[in-house]
């Protein structure tokens, strides 16, 4: 209640409470006015949009005629459509193939850059460059890098005997190729977040642990990892949500191919909606994507969300 003292010079909590409340009530209308952009925006582009998506998913509609209601038929068809099931498989392959190495490398590099050394700022900035390159540009660049006879990668693959590797035209190599470029771009992004997390851990903890004779690995396991838990949860959730939305690299590099080897869910949805004009089918797929992601996020909060005592 020091606020009251400073304004009125009266040290009386009884006096302070109604005063504060009067302001709050009188101004609550303004609170709504300031919140109005969010209410309108999220109301239209999320509540209404998601509701509409659900409704469309119950219809057959080619965008031109009138939608015809078919109930859950789209969902039934999707769950038996080998293309869709393949799409889910490919998406999971991409997501976990990308995020798991990304977490490890990002944390590893953050630990390196958490130390002080000469030219640290230069290396940090240089390593971060891929994260500020637009994903379309990054994908086009890697498309050139992957070209069989004149790409940059041939400088490594040719001397060791792998000549004319058709990265993007081989059903077994296309996805690893897409994953590799995604990892290189994602690592610096999450490295910086881990680094900020590491800098938030008080130095005293390490000093105390050192005095108690804890080695470097022990300090990492017993101090760094537990205290980084909120950051780890954030990184896990955000990186998985981001990876599930992958579209640009597959669109630029492979168009979903060869065959359907890189036809991730957003690609599947995009094609069914805007190439085949199958709005109901695409909407149903997008609702399933949303549900899958919510389920995964829920699991992550259960696994990582609770504060640890050990």
């Amino acid at each position: 209640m020091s606020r009251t003292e400073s304004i009125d010079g009266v040290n009386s909590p009884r006096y302070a409470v109604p005063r504060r409340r009067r302001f709050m009530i009188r101004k609550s209308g303004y609170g709504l006015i300031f919140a109005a952009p969010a209410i309108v925006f999220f109301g239209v582009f999320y509540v209404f949009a998601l509701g509409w998506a659900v409704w469309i998913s119950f219809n057959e509609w080619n965008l031109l005629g009138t939608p015809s209601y078919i109930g859950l038929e789209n969902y039934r068809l999707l769950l038996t459509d080998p293309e869709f099931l393949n799409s889910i498989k490919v998406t999971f392959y991409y997501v976990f193939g990308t995020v798991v190495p990304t977490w490890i490398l990002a944390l590893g590099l953050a630990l390196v850059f958490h130390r002080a050394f000469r030219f640290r700022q230069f290396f940090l900035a240089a390593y971060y460059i891929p994260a500020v390159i637009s994903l379309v540009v990054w994908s086009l660049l890697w498309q050139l890098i992957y070209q069989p006879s004149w790409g940059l990668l041939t400088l490594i693959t040719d001397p060791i005997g792998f000549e004319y590797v058709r990265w993007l035209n081989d059903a077994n190599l296309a996805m690893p190729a897409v994953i590799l470029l995604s990892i290189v771009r994602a690592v610096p992004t999450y490295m910086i977040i881990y680094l900020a997390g590491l800098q938030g851990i008080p130095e005293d903890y390490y000093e105390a642990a050192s005095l108690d004779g804890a080695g470097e690995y022990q300090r990492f396991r017993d101090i760094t990892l537990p205290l980084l838990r909120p950051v780890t949860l954030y990184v896990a959730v955000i990186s998985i949500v981001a990876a599930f939305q992958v579209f640009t690299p597959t669109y630029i590099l492979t168009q979903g191919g060869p065959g359907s080897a890189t036809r991730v869910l957003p690609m599947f949805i995009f094609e069914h909606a805007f190439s085949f004009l199958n709005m109901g089918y695409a909407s149903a797929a997008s609702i399933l994507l949303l549900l899958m992601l919510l389920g995964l996020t829920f699991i992550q909060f259960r696994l990582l969300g609770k504060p640890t005592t050990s």
Partner: protein
Amino acid sequence: MNRPALSRMAHKILFYGLLTAGLLVFLFPVLWMVSASLMRREDVLDTPTNLLPPVWRFQNYVDIFTEFNFGNYFFNSVFVVGSIVALNTIFCSMVGYSLAKFDYPGKNILFVFILATIMVPFAAILIPLYLIVRELGWINSYQALIVPFSVNALGVFLMRQFMLAIPDDYIDAARVDGAGEFGIFFRIVMPMSGPAVTTVAIVMFVTHWDEFLWPLVVTTTDQYQPLTVGLAKFQEQYGTEWNLLMAGAVVAALPVVLLFIALQRKFFAAMGGLSGLK
């Protein structure tokens, strides 16, 4: 030299050796992109791969603007992203202020709801969003590219967290002095939130400079297409003109890279600070 000094030396060499090897992965491809953008068309197709242009062709950067429509794409990107950044700094601040400093029924529900939208993948709302824009008659327009991104959940959250720390005293004192609510917001709260506003602006700029799927869906002609779509179109039509494509790519990458180099610390604070959003 004695042995500990030698081992320290070896350690150092190994450490910097590994760091430099990392540069090959993170920095080198980008440098090579610049190199390829300065080659002649046939030099990009050479085996073994040219690391540097055998003949430097700066004309590539002229060609993409004079013979192709990159100037137009560039303007569209700047205009659209600039508008998105401007709208977000104002709207996210307003909403953050409302959530931090006012009390009204449903406030907590609104807050939790806004946070929850972070989990909604764009692909899940792509179709209805397209239909809304189509109903409004906005297909192929700047509105279509700007309005659906005019408020950002992460931005709102960031502003709220920052504004919670602004003492109520300042706001109440201004009220006692008879300042209007919008005056308080624009003249006291916004200026005090400078660092958070900068963060929102940087994050929005980087995110939306990168926007691809949405403009690909809602724009149909060069007139409104941003650089990302322009590049993809160029690749489809002139797939073998790698030198020009890379020149366009460098131009598209440059604004964010320059901003990053100029504002490195702010950039890292903004991007790393996102973890503080938890």
